[in-house]
């Protein structure tokens, strides 16, 4: 049975996209945290989280994003979210993420939003 998380990083210009698929819960959150930390340590502060293949997220996953956002924004970067299904969006919506984070429908829109910042 599949209980895990699948992640890969795609870098394009100054933007790093972390594609997260599978299940993001208390079991897999530490792997997700490691990937975010890896980006921060290599000074990649413009981060897109692409959730196109994410099946599930709990507060453990939300906590990782919340725990790292300050550091990233202090470096003039941001974490932006995209391509999530309706059920995943609902979890973000329940905890008020849409007023704190930029959430876009497509990867392309999200990339453009970073471009318009500078």
């Amino acid at each position, binding site marked *: 049975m599949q209980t895990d998380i699948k992640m890969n990083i795609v870098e394009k210009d100054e933007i790093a996209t972390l594609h997260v698929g599978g299940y993001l819960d208390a079991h897999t959150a530490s792997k997700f945290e490691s990937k975010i930390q890896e980006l921060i340590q290599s000074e990649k502060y413009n981060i897109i989280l692409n959730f196109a293949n994410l099946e599930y997220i709990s*507060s453990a996953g939300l*906590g990782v994003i919340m725990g790292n956002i300050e550091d990233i924004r202090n470096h003039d970067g941001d974490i932006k979210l995209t391509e999530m299904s309706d*059920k995943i969006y609902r979890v973000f919506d329940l905890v008020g993420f849409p007023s704190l984070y930029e959430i876009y429908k497509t990867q392309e829109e999200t990339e453009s939003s970073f471009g318009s910042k500078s």
Partner: protein
Amino acid sequence: MSAMDKVSNKDFVLKISTQSTNLKIIRDFITDIARKAGFDESASFDIALAVDEACTNVIKHAYRGGDDKEITVKVRYDSDKIIISISDTGKGFKSELEDEAAVKKRLNSLQRGGLGIFLMKKTMDEVVFDKDSDLMNSVKMTKYLH
């Protein structure tokens, strides 16, 4: 290690060890029953999320105690609601030795706990923590069909 006993048509019990890898099994167990009880896909997802959050709290406690215990998830539904009780009633036993750094890392990801209770209350109609019980973690959650 899990055992699912069907007590009657509408009563179900899952006893499972306090390993975070079991959260997916617990969610699948709950989702199946919620669908049987008549909840749609979205409501069933919500119920499974609430149960995941409650079980994560139990697992967090088990790690703090250094023990590997058992979570008991009891589910009952009737024509208008589903009631889920979660507790760590199992006898504690020492888990196999784990790398200290790995334990610390896992605890860190589990400790941002306030959001979990918030989500439980958002997704369920009633959430009651059993404070009188001598159990360390016991919670009962109800969701109505309409």
